[in-house]
């Protein structure tokens, strides 16, 4: 009976449903995009490895940007600090420690050259960061301490120089110069390995870079004698806080710092950074979801409006139904059921449209090169359906009540 009554006013029923369809589809799309964005961001963070600490020179708020962002150059973090942090008696939970500098430079092989980032690092990089070698090996401990003239290429750099030449990069000699050494011939370095493609992490291409021994990068490319960062991998997440305090006390002793106000380094926890990003994306998607929920409420007001018009239009019908035996409760139930059915069907269409559009968005994102997951949570679907039916019932309640209270004689006389 309900369906038949709705079908007899197809155009109106469809338009009424539209508000709910848009609202529900909006909620699902936004929740899905939010979850996709969150997984993208967290994926970027976690790709470098979990349980990572980074120590940067200069004091800054661990939750804010590092001191370098403000143009401050702090030279107090040095290679011997990294060495000290490798001591298992002082920092027992560190499974890898890596001192690092980075810069922009040009790599030349025969008549080909490419602009890329270079990372000066010691052998600890392999212990701290997740990656695998496509061929050859990474910079070894002896190569590093001996200042060997070697380099490891990221996969894109290897492609830029060697693709199509048929030459195995391993054993070839490249010349590297930093951006400030424009006219120099470059430092000749022998390629000992190529890193397998890694994608991007922290929105930075991890394949468009080369690795050189720390001493070469510091002394011959950048002309500096300090580290830009020390990374530490902690054995498990429970020991992260302990390790932060171990690292802090080692560095305070080495830098002869007595008061916390004078600390000249910052220890950052990557998990904390991930948490912050997660909080931000959650807050954003909550915000957007509530915007979509508002459109559901607007859809509900549409239901209210149409149901009121319907009750007025069907006054004689209500009178007749009462005359032939419908009680107030039966009339109320009929109109509530009509409102609920409208919103339920609208909700169902909204879910289908929402899922399809979310999927298309995910396909588009992947096409654009993002590592995007298509996520539809059951809970978001349930919430959307629940809210849409509830909207129908709540906004259908008043018109239904109004209909049920009509006096049959007045209703039958209504013109």
């Amino acid at each position, binding site marked *: *009976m309900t369906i*038949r009554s709705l079908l*007899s006013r197809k155009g109106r029923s469809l338009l009424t449903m539209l508000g709910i369809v848009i609202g529900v589809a909006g909620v699902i799309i936004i929740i899905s995009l939010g979850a996709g964005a969150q997984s993208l961001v967290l994926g970027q963070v976690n790709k470098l490895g979990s349980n990572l600490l980074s120590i940067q020179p200069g004091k800054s708020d661990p939750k804010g940007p590092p001191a370098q962002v403000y143009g401050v150059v702090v030279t107090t973090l040095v290679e011997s600090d990294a060495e000290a942090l490798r001591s298992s008696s002082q920092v027992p939970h560190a499974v890898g420690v890596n001192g690092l500098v980075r810069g922009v430079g040009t790599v030349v092989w025969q008549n080909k050259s490419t602009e890329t980032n270079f990372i000066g690092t010691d052998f600890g990089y392999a212990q701290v960061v997740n990656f695998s070698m496509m061929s050859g090996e990474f910079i070894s401990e002896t190569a590093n301490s001996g200042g060997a003239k070697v380099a490891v290429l990221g996969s894109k750099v290897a492609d830029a120089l060697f693709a199509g030449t048929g030459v195995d990069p391993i054993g070839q000699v490249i010349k590297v110069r930093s951006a400030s050494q424009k006219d120099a011939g470059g430092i000749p370095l022998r390629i000992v390995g190529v890193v397998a493609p890694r994608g991007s992490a922290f929105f930075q291409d991890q394949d468009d870079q080369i690795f050189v021994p720390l001493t070469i990068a510091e002394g011959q490319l950048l002309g500096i004698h300090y580290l830009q960062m020390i990374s530490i991998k902690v054995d498990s997440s429970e020991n992260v806080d302990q390790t932060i305090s171990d690292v802090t006390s080692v560095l305070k002793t080495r830098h002869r710092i007595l008061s916390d106000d004078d600390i000249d380094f910052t220890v950052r926890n990557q998990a904390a950074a991930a948490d912050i990003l997660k909080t931000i994306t959650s807050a954003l998607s909550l915000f957007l979801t509530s915007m979509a929920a508002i459109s559901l409420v607007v859809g509900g007001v549409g239901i209210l409006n149409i149901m009121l018009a319907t009750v007025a239009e069907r006054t*004689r*019908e209500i*009178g*007749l*139904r*009462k*005359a*032939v*035996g*419908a*009680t*107030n*409760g*039966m009339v109320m139930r009929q109109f509530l059921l009509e409102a609920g059915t409208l919103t339920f069907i609208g909700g169902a269409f909204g879910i289908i449209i929402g899922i399809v559009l979310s999927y298309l968005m995910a396909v588009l994102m992947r096409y654009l090169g993002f590592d995007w997951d298509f996520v539809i949570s059951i809970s978001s679907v349930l919430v959307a359906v629940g809210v849409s039916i509830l909207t129908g019932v709540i906004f259908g309640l008043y018109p239904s009540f109004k209909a049920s209270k009509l006096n*049959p*004689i007045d209703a*039958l006389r209504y013109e």
Partner: protein
Amino acid sequence: MPIIKIENLKKDYESEGVITNVLRGVDFSMEQGEFVAIMGPSGSGKSTLMHILSFLDKPTSGLYEFEGQDTKDFDKDYLAQLRNERIGFVFQSFNLLARTTVLDNVKLPLIYSNKKDHDNLAKKALADVGLSHRLDFFTNQISGGEKQRVAIARALVCDPAVIFADEPTGNLDSKSGNAVLEILQKLNDRGHTIILVTHEMDTANHAKRIIYIRDGLLVGDEKVLKRTLATSDGELRK
């Protein structure tokens, strides 16, 4: 035992502080199987009397016994149940549901009853009014006379004790009106109690008894001596 008995029945309406005495003390009773016409000019109170008798309205004071029971303390839901099970309505303006088939219109009261086999009951009622060939027609596809016959089938379908017909021929040409009155007479012949409200003497003469209402009072109650018998071809049987 009379099927309907009223004593000193009064109904007042209040509108913007002005009280109108529509019924001013009516006494009347009727037995099962009667065919009574309530006659009176417009504004006489005959429609109000019919609404009270058919449980669409309640009297301000006075006694109303239906099938031997005082109706004073019946609650709204029980009144709805009585309208469904014991009362059938035929209105002047048909009051059929638009965009709905003939069969579904007749099934409407059954939705609110606990009777089973709605299809067969509705088809039987439609056969009684000679509309078995119109089951799947929509109500906008049939003539006025057929519409009123659908309404009679709808009034019949729950097998009521009393059928109320409020100016059932008022919107019909004389031929269709005759057909409707013929059906009402046949139903009465088969034992249904019928109350016909009209302001036309010609129509009232189809009943067996006429009650005259004027200014809220019963001013006459007589047997129809020369009863008009309607025939479907419009000819009168005397």
